[in-house]
Each structure stands twice: as C-alpha cells, then as structure tokens.
C-alpha cells in the first residue's frame, strides 16, 4: 500500500511537472471492490449502476461543476455536458426508477471525509489529493487493471 502511494506520489509530482492532470477513483475502505472497468465506472457515474455487487447503494460523490474532477468526469469519462448529465439523472428519477444518490461536495478533502462515513460512496478525486490525511484512508480502485501511477492508466 505504501509503495502504491509512493508511486502515486511520484506520478502525481511528475504529472504536475509535465502539466498533465490525473484522477483516481476512491471508495470506502470496507468496499471489497479493487478494480473497475472503465465501462463499469461510466455506468456508475452515469446512474446506470445504483448498487454495489456486495449490496450497498452506490453513492456518487462529485465536486462543483467548475472543478477539474467534474470537468474530467463530464468531458473525458462520460463525454457529456453538465446540464445533459443533470437532465439524464433527473429523467431516471422521473421514470420512477430508484434515484441516483449523488452528493456534490465543496472540496476534495470534504469529499474524502464524506466517503469515510458512507460505505457505498465512490468519488473521482485528483491524484494530488490522495496524500492528504482525509483521503489517505480511502481505497484507490484500479481502472482497467491499472493504478494511476501505472502506464496506460486511462483517467488522465
């Protein structure tokens, strides 16, 4: 775990120095999931998947629209706009389906704190925040089998 964080730290440092933004997917430490496919991730944030396989309800943690992680979520992961995304989520609720639980939090730290209390929460945070005390206790999930520091990581 420590080695992973060290690698992440180095990668983050390198990415920042190179001017490249990188994002990590974090979950509650009690969450048994270790790796997600990109498609699964898109399904969770797109409101398609609303429950973890082990049971708990998926709670989406997002930042304000102007934050880098939200822009990355919209632009790179879901390939949509904020308004389209809101509309899509609203349509799910209007259809009578189980509504998507989504919490918009003010900062990366708050997001991490939040996730600590909610076992089914998942968030996309900047890899630079992983070293903060609030985020360090969360679990970083492999995307397509790769951690953020590894080559071929897709959330950059």
């Amino acid at each position, binding site marked *: 775990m420590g080695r992973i964080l060290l690698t992440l730290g180095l990668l983050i440092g390198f990415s920042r120095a190179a001017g490249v933004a990188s994002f990590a997917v974090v979950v509650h430490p009690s969450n048994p999931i270790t790796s997600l496919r990109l498609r699964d991730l898109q399904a969770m944030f797109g409101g398609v998947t609303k429950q973890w396989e082990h049971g708990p309800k998926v*709670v989406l943690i997002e930042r304000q629209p102007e934050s880098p992680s939200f822009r990355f979520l919209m632009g790179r992961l879901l390939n949509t706009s904020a308004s389209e995304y809101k509309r899509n989520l609203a349509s799910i609720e209007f259809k009578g389906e189980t509504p998507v639980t989504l*919490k918009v*939090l003010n900062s990366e730290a*708050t997001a991490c*704190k939040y996730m*600590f*209390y909610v076992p089914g929460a998942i968030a996309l945070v900047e890899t630079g925040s992983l070293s903060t005390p609030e985020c360090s206790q969360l679990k970083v999930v492999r995307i397509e089998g790769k951690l953020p520091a590894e080559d071929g990581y897709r959330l950059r």
Partner: protein
Amino acid sequence: MSYLRKHVLVAVLALAALLASILGTRSLQQAITGCRDLYRVDTIGSQMESDLEYQAQESRRSFFYALAITDPNDQLPYLYEGHAATVQLAEAIERLRHLAPDMTGFADQFERVWRVYERERDEIVARLLEGDTAAAIRLDQQRGQPAFATAMRELRALKSRLEVRARQESLQVDQTLKRSAVGLGAFVLCTLLIVALLSKANHDRRVALESLHANNLVLAEARRMEQQRASVLEMVSKHASLSRTLTEIVEMAPQSNARAGAAIWAAAGQFLHFQVAANLPQELTEVLRQLSLSRTDETSGPSGEVEVRRSVLPRTSGLEVSESRVLHDAGGRVIGMLQVFAPGQDAAVRANVLDQMAHLAAVGIENTLLYERLAFQAQHDTLTELPNRLLFQDRVQQALQLARRHRKKAALLWIDLDRYKQINDTLGHRVGDEVLCEVGRRLKGCLRESDTVARVGGDEFTVLAHDVNSPADADLVCSKILTALSRPMLSGEHAVTVTASIGVSIFPEHGQDPIALMRHADLAMYMAKHHGGNAHNLFSPALGDSMHKRLQIEQELIAALEHGEFTLHYQPLTDRTGRLAGLEALLRWTNATLGRVSPADFIPIAEEMGLIQNIGDWVLRTACDAGARWLGAGLEVPNIAVNVSAVQFVAKDLASIVKRVLTSTEFPAGKLVIEITESALMNNIEQTLEQMAALRDLGVRFAIDDFGTGYSSLSQLRNLPVDCLKIDRSFVKDLDSSGSGSTTLVRGIIGLAHSLDLEVVAEGVETQEQLTLLGAMGCDINQGFLLFKPMPAEEIEKLLVTQPDTRVDDVLSLA
C-alpha cells in the same frame, strides 16, 4: 560505659534501625503503591468523567448537530468531530485497560456496547449523509438511542466499580500508611539513637583527636626542643662564641611561657657576669647587666643575692622572677645562673623547658670555661701559670713588630736558676716547685705590667721587656731581678736562697726574630753561669762566634770516634833523677774541618753531650792496649795514667769496664793509674769512693789531678785510696825563688802529700828554675814541656826501647 559495650549497643541499635527501616520502607512502599493505585483509580475515575463520558457525549452531541442539518458539506465537520471523540474514547478505554488491568473486563464490556452504538450510529450517519434524514432520525430513535443508553449504563457501571475499588484502595492505603508510619517511626527512633550514639562517638573521637592533637603538639614541642638542644650542642662542640650559644638558649624562654624572657650569667673569676638576655625590656636588661653576682659555693649559690635585688625588678619592668636555676659544672662548682622573668599574673613556666635551658646553658658555659682553660694551659705553664715558651714566642713576635714599627728596642732575658737541681734533690720536688712559683711571682714583681715573664723550661725563665732604651736599662732590670731573687724564700720550714744567671739579648742588635733573640740570650746566660752564676751577661757577637764554634764541635764530635779521628799521645813523667817515672795518656782530636781541637774545648762538650763515656772507654782501651803491646815487646813500661771524667765516675759500671779492658788487653792493673780531678772527686764523693774502692780491688792506682784548684776536704783526702797528687800547673807556673804564695802552697802540698804517704807530681814544668825549685821542695815526679812533650805511641815506644839508658838530661840535650 566501656568502649566495647558502646560499640555493641551501637551495633544492636543499627540492626534494629535497619530492621525498622526495612519494615518501614516496605510499608511505605506498599503505601506508595496503594497511593499510586488510589491515584490511578481516581485518575481513571476522573478520566471517566473527562474522557469516556465526555467523549461519548461529545460524539453523541456531534451526531445530533449533523442530524439537524442536511447539507453534507455542513454535516461533515460535526460528523468528523464526533468521529474524533469516538477515537479519543477508544484511546481512553485503552488507557483504562493499561492503568487498571483488573478493570479490563469492565472496559471490554463497555467497549463492546459502545461498538454496538458506533455501528448503529455509522449506519445512521450513512443514511444521513446519503440524504435520507428521516430514515436516519427514525433509525436513531429505534436503534441509536437505545444503543447509546446501553453504552452509558455500562459506563456508569464501570465508574461505580472504579469508585468501589478506589474506596478499597483508600482503606488499604490508610492501613499501609499507618504501618509505614510505625515502621518509619521506629526507623526514625533507631536512627536518632544511632545518630545520638554516633554523635557521642564522634564527640569522643573529637576529644580523642584533640587529645592526640595536644599530644602531637607536645611531641612537636619535644622534637623542637630536641632540635634546639642538638643545635646548641653542635654550637658548643664547634666552640661557637659563648654569647651566641647562650642567646640561642635564652630565646627558648617563650616556650616555657609565651610572655617569658630570660637572662644568663656566666662565671668569670670569682663572679658571675651578665652574658645575654632575651624577650626582656631594654631597661630591665640594662639593670641586669649591672648585676655581677658573687660566685659562692654550691650550697648557697648566687640566687640569694638575686632574691635581694628582685625587689628592684617590678619597679623597672613589671616582671617577676618566675624561676631561677644555679648552673653547676660536672664538679658541682657554680658556673652560672639562669633567670626566667614573666609577668606577675602569669608567672608560671614549664619546668621541663627551664631544665633544658639550664642544662644546655651549663654545658655551654662549662665547655667554654674548659676550652678557655685548655687554651690557657696550652699557652701557660701549669705550675706557675706563667706563659709558656709558645706564648712567650708569640708575645715576642708581637713585641718585635711593634718595636720595629716604632723604632724601639726590646730586651729579652734568659734566666736560669743556679743549682736548682740541688734544691730539688735535697729538699724535694715540692719545695722545688714552690721555689719556682715564688721565682715567678718575684720576677713579675720586678717588671712592668706590659712586660712578659714566662717559664720556658725546668728552672728557666724568660722575660720580655718592652721599650728598652739601651743595654743599661736591661742591666738595671737584671740587677733588680737578681736582688729580688736573693731574698730568702720560705717554703714550709725551709728558707731557700736562690741565685740566677741571666743572659740578655737586645732587639734589634742581637737578633731580628724571637728564636735568634732567645738563643742569644741563652748563650749569654750560659756565659754568665760559666763565670760562676748569680750574674747577668749581655750577648755579644764574639760570644756568638764561640758558640758557633761550639756548635761545630758538637756536630763533628758525634762521628769523631767512629771515623777514627782520635789519637792518644803520651807525656812521660820523670822522677827527681830524671828517669822515666810514668806516662800520661792524652787525648788528641784531629778533624778534617776543625783541624786539631784542644781537649779543653771538646772534652766539656763531650761530657755535656754524653759522648765522654764512649770516648773514655776508647782512651782506656787504647792506652791499655798500647801498654800491653809494649810489655809484650819486652819493654819496661812505667805506669800509664788515664784521665777519667766525673761523668765516667758517676756511671756505676766504671769498675767493670776497667776490669773488662784489663782482662782483654792483659795489661796489669797495677800499672794503670786513673786520674780524676779534684773537683770531680769532691762533687760526688760518696759514689766516687765506691767506684774507687772497686777499682782499688782490681789493683788500679789513683792520682788526683789539678790538685789545689778544688775544695778538697783534708779529712776526706786522708780516707781516699789515692796514691798520688798532681799539683795544678797554675801553682807550678807561679813558682819562684822569692817564696811567693804559690811556692808556699806547693811546698805545703808536697809536705801534706808526703805526710799522707802520697807521691807528688808537679804538672806544667816548663823552666829549669821550676824544676830546680820543685826538686828542692822534694817533689817526687815532674811533668812538663821542659822534660817531655806529649808524643805519639810510636815515639814513646822508641823512648821505652832506650829507656834504661835514657835520662832527662839526655833527652834535654837531645832536644
């Protein structure tokens, strides 16, 4: 309490204290442990209050705050605070386990129910954060609140347990504290006792140390005194000045009393004179300096006199005589006094110091007196206490230097008593010694104080007279001395009269140094004595020459016999008919340096030097040998006369020597005539008679030589075994036909001799008139140059060959 008991008691108390301290310490330890437990329980209790309950309530409160709002961004800080409180609560439980392991079970129980509450709360929080506030509230009411209440109950139960335990601990601590108090009390008591005993022991030790210190001081003092004593004795042994030695001693006075001073008097003559003082006021020292104490005998001592004068001391100094010691020498004679002075109110002095001072002072003074005495004796005659030869020479040396510097004269007198030996022999040595002392006193009485009288030998005195202007002054002194000595001296029942012979030498005429002056004065004295004594004689260079000659004779005479320098000449004697009537052996000495020396010059010297014995033996043996040889040759040998000195006669073995010579040479004793002078005969008449009797027994004949010059007693002459009288040549020389005194004397001697049936020989017959007169007066035998001169043995032998036909007339005609 004995030393051993004290230490046993200390040991017992120490053991008791040790036990008490162990018990007390253990109790105290238990009490401390109890206190710690109590404290821990209290701490835990308070932690329950401050940590567990507070954190639990805080956690709950934060939860409620979060529950009251809906925005997760606002909820999260409260939830986070609540989570922190929960973490702290967990830590508090862990501390509780650690502090009170026995309460672990209760802690575990509490934690268990708290975990239940936490799980419920987390679920409620999750609902709340997910936005389902209603479900969260409902869930809290249904499950959260009961779980929290359960947890609180467990917490209160735990607290109650802790309080009970704290009370038990408190009671236990109270008991333990009581026990420890008792133990500590016993410990303190024992410790106090030990401290008291140790204090006492320390006090004793301090006292002992002080005593030891005092002893050390005494020892140091003793060592110091010993060093001082050694120092003083070293000074004494090195003959340091008396004042220096005594100063060293009086400076020891403060050791007897810090405020004491001392003074010492030492013997000089009949008085004790002040020597030194130390630590005394100047005015007192001056007063003491004036005190000359009478040197009385041992029993009274001088202290009585000091006692009388003691009254003056307080007036001058305020001091008192603390102690005084009269100092004695080994013979018990008073030789000094030591006085120690101290203030009246503090007059005690240490006796041992005083004794040492007195002893050292006595040693120093006695040594000095002894040294002075020895020095005096080294330079003075012990009998008369006059300077001896050594000191006299020194005085003369100094006097000569002064005289030389001031161009003055000095006279040296050599005085020898006439016939002093007779006084000694006849009246004994005691009288002789008294005479010498009286002579010394009279000599001093005749001289000035500055002049020196010395005794330089048995009966020899010398005088050094300064500032003599001329020999006449010396004559005056000599006359004065002779007059003084001529007065009879009373020694017991004897009245002794002595005369003296005095020789005088004058500086600078007669010598430049003491030795020369003394030798010349001695020579001059000798001449005075030679001329009969009771006279004085001034040295002259001519006298010196004769003495020089005498010295040469002395030197050459020693080896003369050994070198065969002596010869015998024989002078024939003739009877009235002119026929040969005898031979007189006459000694002749021919020396390579001195030439022919007259017997009149060397015989007295030989007698004085003790050589006459051997020379006389040689003469006797040579004469007898020649006579025997002539007899052996068939010649008619007349009597041979050999002169024997008084010294030979005094020697007791003359008879045996003569006998041995006669035996060895086989010369008939009846032909040997021994001639002895009248004066020699009369000087030792008894001893001479004894010798003559022995010789007479051998058959030897005797002739009295130089008859008429001595003081023969006619009555003794009658008893002497003498065969012949030889009239001294001085009478023969003055013979004349006018009937002078000498003619009368010669006639009387011839008549006397004939009346005693003795032959008469006239010596020194040099003229026909003398021969005729002697013949007319009936002289039996003549001897002189008119008839025969002394001649060597060879010529005598020729004469003897022709003797039967030889008469004086023939010889004269031959001559």
